[in-house]
């Protein structure tokens, strides 16, 4: 089983921090005219948010694993709900590599695997080095072409 790049934790922590800070700003905005929120509570919410994000990121990194098995791409992930997914190569419609602004800053990219299944079943593997992402994309593409089925939808 392959793990993600350790730097992915920074990305997740950054995302959680941004969320917590936005929440803090919202609280600060409604403070004067909707209801009184003590400054301590505001700062507390932000700190707790960041701390939770930190714990979540560390745990998620520990459980996130993937593997190329003989017939399928296999992934394990999830903190609250642990999910083991198998995406048979025959079912791969196309494969993307993507990177967002924070990912780019961290030198990471993601591989997104699309199937014809329902929307939320599209699979994203984050936290790969750009080289590894491209390599994975090529491998998956080759495997998908190799095992192409003609009963596509």
């Amino acid at each position: 089983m392959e793990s993600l790049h350790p730097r992915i934790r920074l990305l997740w922590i950054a995302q959680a921090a941004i969320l917590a800070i936005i929440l803090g700003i919202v609280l600060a905005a409604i403070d004067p005219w909707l209801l009184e929120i003590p400054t301590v509570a505001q700062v507390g919410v932000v700190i707790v948010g960041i701390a939770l994000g930190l714990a979540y990121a560390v745990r998620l990194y520990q459980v996130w694993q993937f593997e190329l098995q003989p017939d399928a791409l296999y992934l394990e992930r999830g903190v609250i709900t642990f999910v083991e997914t198998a995406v048979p190569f025959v079912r791969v419609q196309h494969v993307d590599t993507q990177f967002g602004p924070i990912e780019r800053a961290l030198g990471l990219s993601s591989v997104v695997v699309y199937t014809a299944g329902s929307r939320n079943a599209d699979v994203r593997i984050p936290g790969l080095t750009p080289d590894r992402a491209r390599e994975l994309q090529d491998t998956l593409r080759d495997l998908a072409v190799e095992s192409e089925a003609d009963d596509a939808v």
Partner: protein
Amino acid sequence: MAPTMNRLHPLSAVTYALQYGFLWLWIPVVLLLVLAGAFDPISGAWVPFAAPFGFLAGVAYGIAYYYRFGYEITSDTVDVSSGVFARRSREIPYGRIQNVDIRQGVLQRLLNLAIVSIETAGGGASEATLNFVSEAEATRLQREIRRRTAAARERRRAEKKGTTGGVDTDTEAETETETETENEVDDAASDADADTSSAPTDASRQPDSRERRDQHDLWDHPLESGPDPADEPDAEPAAEAGLETDHDRLGPQPVDAVDDDEYDTFDEFDDGDGFDEHADRDDRNEFDEFGHPQKQPLFDLQARELLLYSFTSIRAAAVAGVLFVFFLGTDLVFDYLLTVAQPVGGPEDLGTGTPTNYGILTIVSLLNGIVITYVLSVAYTFATYYDFRLGRVDEDFVYERGLLQRYSGSIPAEKVQSVTVTDNPLQRLIGYAGLWVETAGYGPESNGGSQSAVPLAEKARVYTFTENLTGVETPKFEQLPKLARRRYLARYSIIAGVIVAIAFGITQVTVLERWYLAAIVFAAVPPAAHLRYVNLGYYVGEDHLVVRRGFWKRQTTVIPYYRIQTVSTRRSIFQRRLGLASLVIDTASSRTMVRGTPTIYDEELGDARDVHGECRERLQTALRKRAESDDLGVSVDFT
């Protein structure tokens, strides 16, 4: 636009013109009102002069849209080009078309017009909508597209045969005509693989009626539980009687007698001897001078079934409709409710009255709401499924239905992703169920790519249909571990607790008292948990996975392994504590977006992982098998 392209019906120019006219009318009006607010020299009084300009511009645009819209049926694709300023040309390959639907509203039926929509698996909407063409043109389009799709399919098969081995022309001619032949091909294929696997399948296809019924009981009883004491014994004779009438109907009525050879003939001179008046009516359209296959009836919804279906199903649309009317005419609705409630002790008006008055008003209003919703729902279902008929043409299912608004459509059998048997508690009580086929397209209604193949029929028949259609053996449902039931008990207790807490909250801020009366909801917890539990089940079959879930709208989905897209084992923190897991089997069926992906809930982790592995393995085996044979996956002659 290429000169050969077809235009829509001239009357659509009129509707487009009016549509855009009334839409664009508002542009100068809104613009004027906004500008008048900002700048002094501009006055809102100019509106009466500006509005006609907007209307005229809209009319011009609508007419231009009509002239710039063209469609064409070429040898490989359906081409549609549209757009007044920004042009879009779209080519849809026949091999990718999921279904072709024709829709006719009341006015359109009077004017002999129809809307044709072509669906593929991609995108969130119809790929092409021809709004609208003449009725004759719509039928021609549907048939033409169907025919060419079939031709493309044949070509593909021939190519495949060419690459895999010699072409047996004899078999090829036969595979497109008869299911019997398909079965033979099936059997030959599976014979080669494993003799044992084909034998039980054969047996389940043509058992005698009693054996059949006994087997069908398996559809309703989980394997481990044995005979369920909850199932009242008097239901058995009813089912038997139902089956007997089946056989009566199988005799004289051609609708159910599709097995007879005469309906399988493709003889161009067969002008429908032995068909009833339905078939004669169909002949008008379906007769083809080139000797192409005619439409053969598979299932007609009888008056009794239509009425039962209408009275036993509740439509979400009816609920939405009632709510809409309520918000639209709140005052009128209140007046009506007050008038109705007054004779039985309701208040004089909303302002005055004792708590008892209000209590009566509330109860009367609720009853009113329920009755009206139900009546609407019955009427809606009746109008939607009036004169429902399902037939087959070659390897496509074709259906039509509707009282005021007519729908008709065709679904290629090879595009069927999964098949679902649905029933609600009322339908289970009278021993009926419905059958739906799911594709990856988007239907004319919001129900995704799901089409009703048999809206409602006796459950024994529906199960037989399901078995014939998919070739699945009679499932022996696995019951989930008892731990699952405990989980639901806990879950529903929490919900009940929340309800009581809310009741407590309400008593704190209103005049209402005795919040603890709300604790009565706890009485519903054990039966609710039990009912959810007993309606869950799954069966790992030879070529299919069968998943059952739901109490209010129970769905039993038959998924061929070769249709599986992804498999996931999910465990929430609660499930991990109990060592349970849910298995999510994703297919390309677009219905999953509305109804949720087929899921085996709360199986023991080890078993869930086993099924997970099994699904993957059998997907690969099935794909290899299918590569070798021309298996359609489903059998079109299923009734």
